[in-house]
């Protein structure tokens, strides 16, 4: 088959969705199909821009004589019209759904903002139903689809890692590791704040490319302001190999985004490395695989609670090792496998 993977992207930004597309493409090619990746620009900084990009996606034309199947994963890429279209839904525009009324609301509460919100929801209600099938990457996304759009997903397909063999058990070093795209919703700042309350001598290592320079500078300022330069390392972008090495030798991992839809690749990378993961009760889909006390900790979203949780793990090395083993076993228990994903998306 000739398969088009359709996504939206903010230029210069790479995150989990881009990794998901790359991984899916690689696995589909391994099955002998041909792939083309279509990445449409997306800028959501104003209501008008959001609506313009929705319209743009709707006006994109893909040739059914050369493309057999379209797989779309994010808003508004799934508006691209195509008869044989399936969705592996990672994101709707959450800011008009459950994030409306929170600090993450992006449209103003004005008639213009309210109107744009209504148009997004109406368009989702209309165009999502065009898809031949809708799979989601987590139960949370499926639940949102049902709650706000009254659409039943055809199933949840948990995204596996592209190269799980990169990750494996190593030493239990003297640092907690948090690799992720640096952006406010990932709450690296909260992790830095937590280190102010830590009394033991472990360190925090943060890695990942900042969405924009200002956030990187802000985090560096915080580290310097609190005098944490010796205990908090901000590495910026690192290679997959370096990330795997740091994860394998970490004491444990952190993954503390705000209200994330899925468990996140960080969680999988940690589990493949036999490390427990600390997350927060408001981190979203992480609790679909992280179980408090079994393969990680689920904590209150405060710097103090996070510090206390890290101290607790640090104080009991044997328990932490046991949690790491349980984390690895979790992968099998949830059937996080590419075969399962491809069987559903490709119908073979």
């Amino acid at each position, binding site marked *: 088959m000739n398969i088009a993977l359709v996504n939206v992207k*903010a230029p*210069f930004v790479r995150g989990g969705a881009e990794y998901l597309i790359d991984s899916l493409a690689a696995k589909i090619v391994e099955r002998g199909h041909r792939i083309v990746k279509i990445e449409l620009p997306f800028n959501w900084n104003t209501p008008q*821009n959001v609506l*313009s990009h929705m319209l743009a996606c709707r*006006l994109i*034309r*893909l040739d059914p004589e050369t493309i057999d199947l379209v797989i779309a994963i994010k808003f508004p890429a799934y508006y691209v019209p195509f008869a044989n279209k399936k969705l592996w839904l990672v994101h709707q525009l959450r800011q008009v759904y459950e994030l409306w009324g929170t600090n993450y609301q992006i449209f103003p509460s004005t008639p213009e903002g309210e109107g744009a919100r209504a148009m997004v929801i109406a368009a989702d209600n209309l165009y999502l139903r065009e898809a031949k099938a809708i799979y989601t990457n987590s139960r949370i996304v499926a639940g949102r689809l049902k709650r706000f759009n009254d659409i039943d997903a055809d199933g949840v397909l948990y995204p596996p890692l592209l190269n799980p063999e990169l990750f494996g058990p190593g030493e239990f070093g003297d640092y907690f590791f948090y690799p992720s795209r640096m952006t406010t919703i990932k709450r690296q700042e909260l992790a830095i704040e937590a280190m102010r309350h830590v009394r033991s001598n472990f360190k925090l290592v943060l890695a990942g490319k900042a*969405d924009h320079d200002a956030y990187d500078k802000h985090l560096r300022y915080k580290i310097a302001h609190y005098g944490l330069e010796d205990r908090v390392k901000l590495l910026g972008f690192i290679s997959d190999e370096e990330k795997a090495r740091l994860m394998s030798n970490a004491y444990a991992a952190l993954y503390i985004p705000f209200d994330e839809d899925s468990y996140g690749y960080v969680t999988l990378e940690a589990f493949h490395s036999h490390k427990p993961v600390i997350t927060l009760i408001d981190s979203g889909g992480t609790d679909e695989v992280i179980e408090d006390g079994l393969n990680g900790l689920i904590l209150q979203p405060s710097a103090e609670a996070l510090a206390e949780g890290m101290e607790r793990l640090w104080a009991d090395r044997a328990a932490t090792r046991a949690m790491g083993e349980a984390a690895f076993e979790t992968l099998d228990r949830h059937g996080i496998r590419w075969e399962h994903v491809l069987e559903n998306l490709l119908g073979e």
Partner: protein
Amino acid sequence: MKIIIATTFMPFRHEAHPGLAEPLADVLREQGHEVDIVRLPFDADSESQLEQIFAFRCFDLTTGSGNIFDRLIAIGWAAGALRHPAKSIWLTTSSDQAAFTMSGESHRPAERGVREAKRLAAASDGIASALRTLGMDEVSLLYPPLTDAAAFVPKPAQDHLVIKLPQDSPDRTALILETLQETRMRGMFVVRPEERASLCDTIQAAGMTDLAQPLNVTDRAAVGEAVSTAFAVLHLDSSTPYSGDVPLGALRARKPLLLAEDTLLRSVFPASAILTVKLASHAFTETLKGLRDDRQRCEQLGAAGARFEKNMTWEQVAKRLLA
């Protein structure tokens, strides 16, 4: 600066401007810029061109995720429809030329995007003239350098020709087959994968499988080797001002480059580096026989061509498009 390079492609068919974005991005990165490439699907054959161009007009490439994008370099007229206050447009293909020479109002979508550009460059006089006709006098000539320079190396010449024809050109194919018969030289036709079967049928029907064979344009290493060891390269593609690395690769490999008299390349390459040939098999035959008997002429052409190619660099392209 944060620079976006935008171009278009037809999924599972071809890129509108294959291979141009990457070397330009590489040289800009070497100069310290941050570069991202945006490739948009565009079906040039579709009746919905207007809708697709309208879609491009709706995309905002000025900011995103807290970043300001300082420049947009659009390759091709369709990508040129994208909006940006600091936009450069580089037009290189026959499609670009056609967009501005269509009758009536058909060129309007292309024209509007191009009129917004701060810098406007074209790969040939043909495109530049079309733009000047529309009052865009600021357009300058900018032919693409080699996208894969390392593939083309001066090597001892063997007894074969590398041939580049326009798509679907039975007359020119017949002309070249006749030339091959008369000179008894082997011919390697550089073709897109989708043209291969048709060419093979033609060669078979002519009973010339011993003298003619297709060469897949996407097999860059094989094309580079064929050009590097060719006796001469024949370029009869009159349909487009830029059709890839083969003509310039011939100059880099110091091989005689024979251009049909109606090719647009004649306005780009210096007369000292090329041989212009009448569009007739006997003319090509005579020219090739003449070159066989005059090795000194071959070397002169090779030296002039190599001098010209050496000055065509991606640094120059970056400088011109960002000026």
